[in-house]
């Protein structure tokens, strides 16, 4: 186990070294976060109305509501996108084959390669929220950080299973990420990112209630904006963990099968 953790950290160190050779993107991302936070602030001011305030959960501004939704979606996107992207990059750069003949298994390579993107997403979100709190009065003081991290961790675990499934799909079919397309597509409408699901037509509300993203999003807002604790968020957290308990093992089984299949068809490193 200790060796696996060491191996995972090697990939983090590798990605950190590579990222450090590109200096300007760090600065540009910080500036982009500033413009992003400003955009959410001014859109919120523009659409602010008594009707909107009535539609939002008690005491929340649309700025805080939508930025919290965006932050969560960034994490969801990372969970869904990171595994197949790291696999694709290794394949395209020709490093997949040399990696596969080392002592490290492909699942560890995938998990290790996901570490840095998750850390980078966390940093980007911290910068976003920092700008929002500093310049636009985002209510960071209300957050229960332990609960925020618990929700984010549960979200990563729950949706990483879909990310691993996407990597399996990429191994077999070489292009495309249907899990990302489906989950982000459905959730952008019926997940409560930018508006409450209560304004949706009844049939879409049913979809929203079947969508685990809706619960995770509510939990994230509860922890970030209302300071809700882990016990208060027990229901959505358990739901996310149950989702992870089903999806992670099954995605690993499917990934292993796909890997074996590509070794049969000889397409493991094909683009």
């Amino acid at each position, binding site marked *: 186990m200790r060796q696996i953790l060491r191996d995972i950290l090697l990939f983090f160190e590798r990605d950190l070294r590579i990222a450090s050779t590109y200096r300007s993107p760090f600065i540009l991302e910080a500036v982009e976060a500033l413009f992003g936070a400003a955009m959410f602030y001014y859109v919120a001011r523009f659409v602010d109305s008594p009707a909107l305030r009535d539609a939002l959960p008690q005491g929340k501004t649309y700025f805080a509501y939508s930025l919290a939704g965006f932050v969560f979606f960034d994490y969801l996107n990372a969970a869904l996108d990171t595994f197949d992207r790291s696999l694709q990059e290794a394949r395209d*750069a020709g*490093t997949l084959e*040399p990696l596969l003949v080392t002592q490290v298994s492909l699942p560890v390579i995938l998990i290790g390669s996901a570490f840095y993107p998750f850390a980078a997403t966390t940093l980007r979100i911290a910068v976003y929220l920092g700008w929002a709190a500093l310049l636009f009065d985002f209510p960071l003081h209300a957050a229960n950080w332990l609960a925020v991290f618990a929700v984010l961790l549960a979200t990563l675990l729950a949706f990483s299973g879909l990310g691993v499934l996407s990597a399996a799909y990429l191994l077999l079919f070489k292009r495309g990420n249907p899990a990302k397309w489906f989950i982000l597509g459905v959730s952008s409408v019926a997940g409560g990112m930018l508006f409450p699901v209560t304004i949706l037509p009844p049939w879409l509300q049913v979809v929203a209630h079947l969508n685990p993203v809706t619960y995770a999003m509510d939990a994230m807002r509860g922890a970030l904006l209302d300071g809700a604790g882990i016990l208060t968020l027990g229901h959505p957290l358990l739901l996310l963990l149950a989702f992870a308990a089903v999806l992670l093992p099954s995605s690993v089984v499917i990934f292993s099968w796909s890997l074996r299949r590509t070794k049969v068809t000889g397409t493991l490193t094909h683009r």
Partner: protein
Amino acid sequence: MRHAINSGVSDPAIILDSLEKWFPPALSGWRTYIQPFAAPTSPALRGISLEVKQGEAVALLGANGAGKTTLLRILATLLLPTRGTASLAGHDTARESAAVRRQIGYHAGSDLGFYARLTGRQNLTFFGRLNHLSDDFTASRIETLGERFGLSRVLDRQARALSSGTIQRLSLLRALLHQPKVLLLDEPTRSLDAIAAADFRHFLKTEVLARKDTSLLFASHTMQEIELLADRVAILDDGKLLAFDTPTALRAKTLSSSLEEAFARLTGRRLYSAGESTPE
């Protein structure tokens, strides 16, 4: 028929037993969605049986598409055999891939395979760590082999700034870094200039093979390289093993003056000599 080693007391480094590999046809358009499930119809290896003993150097000689790379990739655990078995250092490549990977140094012959933004040394250190080598050992091996391969001046340059020949030498260094028991090299000197190629062959001959504790299986189209390095030569044609013997025996059996001529006779190919006109 298995081409066995005569009187070796130690276990063979590599055993191939009736090894077959078939690939499904390459599909395009909407059919790519059934590609992973398509039945294998194209043979790449057909019933290959041979053994390579410890410390022995065996060359794979064959035309393009003869199955040399497929064979090396099966041994490197990157492909699964369709039928038959391949074992390396006593481990089945299909069922015990982790144990096999501990024993091999693999060079794919590609000019890719390094992180462009990392230096040669950073790349090699990363792969050394993935092979669970200590940092001190890795650093010392990189220093020693880097100097031996004429890479000392370029080790601290980013890989993107290196020529394809230099990348190839880095890749060979990577394959040797952890002192593997079995070296699998696919066209090891393909992108090297004549001096670097000769130097690498000399290194393999005098510093790797001379110790008799490392086995070498390599694919090559360079007869001079095969003559210099190989104890025995496996001649493949269209996935079949046509002959497996020492270069001298192959020449004698085919009444040929050179290995090239022996290869042409065994595979039924026409060999054009200097000055002879080629067909229209």
